[in-house]
C-alpha cells in the first residue's frame, strides 16, 4: 500500500472522517448559536448543556419509555426546544433591554444548573447508547472501512445545515427573520409578531443543539460533561467564522473539524489547540472573522 507523507492512507482517511464528523457537530452547534445570536443578540452559553440534554433525552426515551433512535431524533430536539422556549419566556426575555453580556452570564448560570443536575442523577461515567440496527455495520470502501452510522451523521448534519441556511436566506419566513434582526420595531409595525419570532427562533436554535446531542449519543457515550468542553471549541469556531453569517458558521464548522483531524495525524499534541491557534491568527489578520462583516 502506498504511503502519503509517511502516513498510511488508512490512518489519514480515518482521521479525516473523524474530523468531518467532529466538524458536523461544530457546524450544527455553531449554526444554532448563530441563529440565536442573530435575533436575540445573546451568546447562548447553555448551548453545550442543551446539546448534552438532547443526548440524555434520547437515552431516557429509550430506557424509560422504550422509544428508539428514530423517533428520538424528532422527539428529543422537540423536548429540548420546548424547554428552551420556557427558558426564553421566563428568563431571557427579561434581559433584552439590558446589555447583551447579561444574556451570556444568565445562560452560563443555566449551563451550570443543567450540568450539575445531570451530574447529580447520572454521575460522570458515560451511559451507553446503541447504534440503531438500520445503521449498524459499515462498508468497505477498499481503502478504508466506513461505519454506516458515521456516514449518516455527516449526511444528517449536512441536510439540517442546508435546510436551515435555505430557510433563512431564501424563504419569506427567513426574510422576516433577517428584517427583524435589522430593525425589530419596524418589522413589528408591519404586523409581524416579533416576540413570537424571537421565541420560536430560540426554540429552534436550541432544538438544533438537541438534535446534535441525539446524533452524538451513539458515538460518544452520553455523559453530563459532553457539552462543557465542546462549547468552547464551538465559540472559537464562531469567532473564526464571523458571527454575522449563517454560511460562515456552517463552512467554518466543517473546515475546522477537518483541520483538527489532519493535525491529529501530523502533529497529535497540537490537535487540542489547533482551533485556538487558528482563531488567534484570524483575529490578527481579519478581526471580524472569515465570513463576518466589519463592525
Amino acid at each position, binding site marked *: 500500500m502506498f504511503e502519503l507523507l509517511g502516513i498510511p492512507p488508512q490512518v489519514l482517511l480515518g482521521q479525516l472522517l473523524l474530523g468531518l464528523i467532529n466538524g458536523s457537530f461544530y457546524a450544527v452547534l455553531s449554526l444554532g448559536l448563530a441563529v440565536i445570536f442573530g435575533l436575540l443578540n445573546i451568546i447562548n452559553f447553555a448551548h453545550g448543556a442543551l446539546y448534552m440534554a438532547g443526548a440524555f433525552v434520547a437515552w431516557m426515551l429509550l430506557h424509560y419509555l422504550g422509544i428508539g433512535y428514530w423517533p428520538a431524533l424528532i422527539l428529543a430536539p422537540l423536548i429540548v426546544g420546548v424547554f428552551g422556549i420556557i427558558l426564553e419566556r421566563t428568563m431571557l426575555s427579561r434581559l433584552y433591554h439590558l446589555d447583551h453580556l447579561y444574556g451570556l452570564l444568565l445562560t452560563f448560570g443555566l449551563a451550570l444548573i443543567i450540568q450539575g443536575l445531570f451530574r447529580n442523577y447520572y454521575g460522570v461515567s458515560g451511559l451507553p447508547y446503541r447504534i440503531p440496527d438500520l445503521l449498524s455495520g459499515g462498508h468497505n470502501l477498499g481503502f478504508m472501512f466506513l461505519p454506516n452510522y458515521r456516514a449518516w451523521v455527516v449526511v444528517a448534519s449536512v441536510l439540517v445545515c442546508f435546510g436551515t441556511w435555505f430557510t433563512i436566506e431564501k424563504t419569506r419566513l427567513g426574510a422576516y427573520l433577517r428584517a427583524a434582526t435589522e430593525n425589530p420595531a419596524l418589522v413589528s409595525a408591519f404586523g409581524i409578531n416579533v416576540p413570537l419570532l424571537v421565541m420560536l427562533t430560540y426554540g429552534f436554535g436550541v432544538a438544533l443543539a438537541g438534535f446534535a446531542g441525539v446524533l452524538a449519543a451513539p458515538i460518544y457515550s452520553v455523559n453530563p460533561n459532553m457539552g462543557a468542553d465542546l462549547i468552547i471549541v464551538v465559540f472559537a469556531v464562531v469567532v473564526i467564522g464571523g458571527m454575522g*453569517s449563517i454560511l460562515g458558521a456552517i463552512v467554518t464548522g466543517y473546515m475546522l473539524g477537518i483541520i483538527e483531524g489532519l493535525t491529529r495525524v501530523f502533529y497529535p499534541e497540537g490537535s*487540542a489547540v489547533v482551533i485556538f491557534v487558528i482563531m*488567534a491568527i484570524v483575529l490578527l489578520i481579519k478581526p471580524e472573522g472569515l465570513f463576518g462583516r466589519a463592525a
Partner: protein
Amino acid sequence: MAAQDTNTDTIIAAPAPQVAGMPMLHKVIFVLLLIFLAALPFMVYPIFAMKVMCFALFAAAFNLLLGFGGLLSFGHAAYFGGASYVAAHAAKVWGLTPELSVLCGTAAAALLGLVIGGLSIRRQGIYFAMVTLAFAQMVYFFALQVPFTGGEDGIQSVPRGNLFGLISLENNISLYFFVLAVTFGGILFLYRIVHSPFGQVLKAIRENEPRAISLGYNVNRYKLMVFVLSATFSGLAGATKSQVFQLASLTDVHWMMSGEVVLMTLLGGMGTIFGPLVGGALIVTMQNYLATFGAWVTVIQGVIFVIGVLLFREGIVGVISRWLKRPL
C-alpha cells in the same frame, strides 16, 4: 443575519469614583478590614482565611477590568492559574524564595495578559468575552500537555521556603501575614488605579467610547493597559494561592474558574470597591461548607448566577451603596 456588535462595551454603570483623596468612609472600612484580617487567623483555620484573601484579590483584579473597564473577560483563569504554575515551578524547581516565586508568577501573568489582551481587544462586547475564553482554553490545554506542569497531577508539594531567605513560612501564621501583606497591598493598589487619572479615562471610555476617541484618547491602548493590569493582579492572586496550598493544578486554569470569578464579582457588586471582596469571601465560604454536597455546589452557583442576573444586578455591596447613597 446581521451582527449588531457595536455598542456592547458598556456593561454596568458603576458609582462614580471620587478623585481627590480617599473618602473618610473608605478609609474607615479599609482600617476596620485590616484589623479584622489581622485577627482572623486566630479565629478560623488560617489556610481557609488565606484562600478567601487570594480569591478576594482575584475578584478585585477581575472587577478592575469588568466593573471599571467595562470589559467582560471570560478567561481570567488563564492568568490566575498560569501564574500559580509559574510560581510553583519557580519555588520547587528553581528553588527561589517565596517573594521571588510570586513575582515570577505575576510577571508571567502580565506577559500572558499583554499577548492575549493585545489580540482580544480587537473584538468588542460578546466577541471579546468569547475570544478571551477561547484563549484561556488554549492555556488550559497547554497546562495539560507540557511536561513541567505535571498534567493531571499538577505541581505538588511546593516548598514554602523562607521569606527574603530569612523568615520561614512553614508556620501557617507567618505565611498568613505574608499573604495578608500581598493581597491587602494589591487591593489598595487596585483602589489607587481606579481613583487615578487613568481610572477617570477608563470611566470615560466605558461610558462613551466614541467621545473618548474624539477627545484624542488612544482607547485601545487604555483598554490594553487595564487588561494587562487586571491580568497581573489576577496572577498575583494565583501565585500567592499556589504558595498557600503548595499546589498548582488544572482546577485553577479551567474555564469553571473564569466563571467563578465572574460570579464573585456579580454577587458582590460590579464596579464597586468592596463588592468583589464580599463576593469572593461568600463564594469561597459557600464552597467550603457545601463541599460535601458534591455537584450540588455547581447547581447552587448556577442558581446564584441566574438570580443575580435576573433580580440582583447591583450585587450585595451595590445595594448597600445605594441605600447609603455613597459609592462603596
